[in-house]
């Protein structure tokens, strides 16, 4: 059995601009295959920057990131095939139809026409988008837009799913549907990295947590270890990020 970690980050540094504003400050993190990580931290802690470094949207200042043993910069093609990402902000062509958006992205990942059409149909069904497939993205409600972004992340059947605030702005019904779907994916052995401001969501879904603050991992570990003694995730979060000190 291949024991190469799904994610291996070594001493990652990321600075922005000429003033070298530090966004990620020496993060090291290893995630085994099939793990479900809840990445937590206050706004501006470096969560989205870390994700953007993993998926290739941001350049790495120093350090290294590997997904399934593939360096995200040197072996970017192989690394990106393993990743599916749903970003916090919508980055979809607002004039493109829902079905076309999924079809194009499937094409970028090299799926042939027949496979692509089948996969798009599966996802339209899975995310309740069939009746909206001919609508352009700008015509959709916030919840439907979120569904499209999630479906897009899954179009090439990635082994590792990265979800940055996937339930922001969606109704309770969709949120619960999504939880159930993520649990299903996790049971199927997919590796998942989830960031969310809904701590109950992370507590329910993730089997391990990493807390990030000021660009550093301030604590990381399994759910059992971090919530030992019946602690609530919210209390641990406030304690670790110092937000309980008024």
């Amino acid at each position, binding site marked *: 059995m291949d024991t190469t970690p799904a994610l291996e980050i070594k001493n990652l540094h990321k600075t922005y601009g000429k003033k070298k504003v530090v966004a990620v400050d020496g993060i090291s993190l290893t995630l085994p295959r099939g793990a479900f990580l809840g990445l937590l931290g206050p706004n501006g802690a470096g969560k989205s920057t870390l994700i953007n470094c993993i998926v290739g949207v941001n*350049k790495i200042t120093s350090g290294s990131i590997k997904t399934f043993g593939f360096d995200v910069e040197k072996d*970017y093609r192989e690394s990106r095939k393993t990743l599916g990402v749903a*970003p916090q902000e919508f980055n979809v062509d607002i004039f493109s139809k829902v079905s076309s958006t999924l079809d194009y992205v499937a*094409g970028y*990942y090299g799926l042939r026409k027949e496979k692509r059409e089948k996969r798009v149909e599966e996802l339209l069904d899975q995310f309740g988008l069939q009746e909206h497939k001919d609508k352009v993205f700008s015509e959709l409600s916030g919840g439907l837009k979120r569904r499209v972004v999630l479906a897009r992340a899954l179009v090439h059947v990635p082994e590792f799913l990265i979800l940055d605030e996937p339930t922001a702005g969606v109704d309770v019904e969709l949120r619960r549907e999504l939880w159930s779907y993520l649990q299903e994916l996790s049971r199927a052995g997919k590796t998942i990295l989830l960031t969310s401001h809904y701590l109950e969501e992370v507590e329910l879904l993730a089997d391990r947590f990493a807390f990030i603050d000021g660009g550093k991992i301030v604590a990381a570990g399994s759910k059992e270890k971090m919530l030992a003694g019946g602690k609530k995730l919210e209390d641990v979060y406030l304690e670790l990020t110092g937000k309980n000190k008024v």
Partner: protein
Amino acid sequence: MNWIGLYTLMRREIERTFRVVVQTIFSPLISASLFIFVFGTVVGARIDEIGGVSYIVFVFPGILIMNVLTSAFSQASSSTYFAKWARTIEELLVAPLSYFEIMIGTVLSAVARAFTVGIVILLMGLLFGAVQMQSFPLFIFYILGVSIVFGLLGIITGLVAKSFEQLNVLSTFIILPFSFLGGMFYTLDMLPEAAQKVAIFNPFFYFVDGIRFAMVGIHDSNLLIGAIMIFALILILGGTVWRIFYTGWRIRE
């Protein structure tokens, strides 16, 4: 090579072109038709032959190449700027596509739009009796070469521009005046001597002159210089675009 990815990128851009067909195809067609009408029927009838051909036959290659290069430039610049503005470029950055493939896909979609516009205007020219063809391979060479040059220039402009207004700066202040001053409507010897010396430094002069030679068989410039210039521009601009993608300037933070 990720051939399916590359093909998809092109397909997406071409479909985007046809989503706004009035702006991308009909607008240059109307503009070219007006030029053909004015210079063929109104003004052309009162002008003597140039180089043994009617005035409309003389100016038609210039009208054609101006629309071809403008279309290639608009396609690549608007596509790149829109992708940056709407952040859809992230779809490409997270996909298993190399920078080279992204560059080639964008340029080829610019070439496709330029060819579509070129064919439509050529058909319009045939209706007005404005089309001659001396060398079809040379004609294709100039259309293709100029489309690639302006496709690459469009990508650079789309990356540099910080607003929709800036996107039009190159078009308004460089492309339009340089095309008009590049011998679209006249031969080099019609210009004052001083202006002739300046004109030979205008790259557009070689583009117009080259396509005119391919279509009508007359030329003012050294065609070899024109061909070398096209190859050199493709290499320089292609290298610049690849370098920009590689360093991530204005694309990857």
